[in-house]
């Protein structure tokens, strides 16, 4: 019977470990995404430019915007496209307007395509690092500063940067209630 007991113990541990593993997949996946650019995820905290060198290549960056769940927001890039020099920081901004009669809390989710180029698109400053609060009728400029890493392979074509704006006012209200 000791054989059976030790089998049970080992298997129970395996079950617990596999349950833990499912949660471990969350950070593993994030790391994986960052390395491979899976899903076009970009850096989530400000990039501190240090070792990027200017070079004389130019790439076109296209700016795209989306509003999730048809929230009452106007959200568009100020320019739809820029041709930028690799390794040089640039500024641009998006414009957001609250078309509702209430104050809203929003947050933006960035995504770059082709995903494999996401890692070369470095955001030095981005409104997507924080949540926004926007009053009824208010218009806001949301700035980004970015730099294209000179490690970018040659011949990589255009880069598309997309932001999806989410209205998270309800979630915030709910967490406050808790």
């Amino acid at each position: 019977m000791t054989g059976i007991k030790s089998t049970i113990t080992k298997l129970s541990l395996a079950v617990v470990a596999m349950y833990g593993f499912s949660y471990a997949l969350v950070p593993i996946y994030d790391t994986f995404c960052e390395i491979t650019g899976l899903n076009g995820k970009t850096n989530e905290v400000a990039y501190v430019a240090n070792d990027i060198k200017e070079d004389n290549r130019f790439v076109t960056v296209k700016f795209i915007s989306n509003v999730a769940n048809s929230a009452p927001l106007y959200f568009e890039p100020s320019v739809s496209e820029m041709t930028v020099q690799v390794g040089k920081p640039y500024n641009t901004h998006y414009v957001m307007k609250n078309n509702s009669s209430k104050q809203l809390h929003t947050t933006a989710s960035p995504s770059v395509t082709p995903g494999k180029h996401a890692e070369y698109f470095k955001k030095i400053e981005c409104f997507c690092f924080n949540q926004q609060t926007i009053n009824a009728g208010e218009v806001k400029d949301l700035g980004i500063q970015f730099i294209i890493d000179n490690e970018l392979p040659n011949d990589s074509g255009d880069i598309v940067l997309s932001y999806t704006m989410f209205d998270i006012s309800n979630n915030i209200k709910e967490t406050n209630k808790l």
Partner: protein
Amino acid sequence: MSANIDHLKEEHHQPSGLMRWITTTNHKDIGSLYLWFSLLMFFVGGLMALVIRAELFQPGLQFVVPGFFNQMTTMHALIMIFGAVMPAFVGLANWQLPMMIGAPDMALPRLNNWSFWILPFAFTMLLSTLFFESGGPAAGWTLYPPLSLQGGNSMPFVIFSLHLLGASSILGAINVIATILNMRAPGMTLMKMPIFVWTWLITAFLLIASMPVLAGAITMLLTDRFYGTSFFTAAGGGDPVLFQHIFWFFGHPEVYILILPAFGIVSTIIPAFSRKKLFGYDSMVYATASIALLSFIVWAHHMFTVGMPLAGEIFFMFTTMLIAVPTGVKVFNWVATMWKGSMTFETPMLFALAFIILFTIGGFSGLMLAITPADFQYHDTYFVVAHFHYVLVPGAVFAIIAAVYYWLPKWTGKMYNETLGKIHFWMTTIFVNITFFPMHFVGLAGMPRRIPDYAVQFTDFNMIASVGAFGFGLSQLLFVYILFLTLRQPVTAADKSWEGAEGLEWTLPSPAPYHSFDTPPKVD
């Protein structure tokens, strides 16, 4: 023999009637409970399939609204997978494993009782959500967020019942492993175990490794919905695609959980009716093990269209194609077993032969699906529906039916009616093909899956499929009738019911005694 009969008498101290079944810790009683429960769920899930096929008989909506249709597809899948096929295999394991390895019972009888009795509660809860005002789950059995997060009140109940089902499977798997590793008759080394025991051992490990991952995934769904986490919503930095990765990390091993025991059954029946030993026993064991291992690194082939990086797509394409190698080895070994045998074609053999052909057809379409650029066309169409039904119905379900016919005389001491069995076989096989073969065509022609209504050019094949589905359903009523007739007979079956059958279970009397082997047999 007489010792066994004495033993039977001894057992009569136990409670009778309903209490006997509720409190039983006997592997045969529990095996029967599992099998009857599975049959019931097979019909419940089947009725839902018929609702689906009735609606799809013609274009235009005739019977149900789209929301209800989606509940039917979701429930049908959950019930067939977790309620019909998995419990049937556990039932077979309960009946057969102790007899096949020369043990008196399962290693953990009380645990065994719990793992069965969890099921009726879980399914009552799952099915009751259909009567909620907001309806049952409708996001597909794969529960992809954000859609599944939109659902009504059913969601926590569905998740809780899935947790229960997972727990039941895990307990069952622990029991199976503990039994196989510790209770084999002296002399039965691992490489002498019957192949069905081997496939179940490997399946049990797959369960242990994959069910907790499902539990994790659905718990994250639950906390995303109710506790403000955002594992899967982009608004909070999460990613809906992450759910798909976790789900299929469970899901692909799960599809092998649904087929490995079937491989074991077919590998038992083919030699018995070919009167020749299984060809390549060792390679069968290794093939099963490598399928199981590979099943953990192919998951993303279910999600080629989510936009993975090129390297990922290539990796998962190659690993998936690789699975075809050990699968092919199994098929070749079965054919080699028949080669120069001395075959007869009783009902279990017929089902096993149909299994080989039709499962292989499902394997071929699987191979086509593995080719990523082609899968961009096939994915989420009826072609995929055809694929997985070929591997699951004439695959898993045929194997279960074959097993029931094969071991029924051992379990009950009564022989089924061979003519009716053959009629059942031919009806089932013909209708299964009428139902599922045309789905390849409409899928290739562009019909998406999970839709309640379709463009008119898909009408003809859908009509054929619907006719086939009702025919298939009807044929299974014949199965129930055959079981009923068999059980009403007196005990007449021989201890060894099939000329070519091998294994310890055939050394026991028919019906098998309540405790299988009190004194372990010697195996050399």
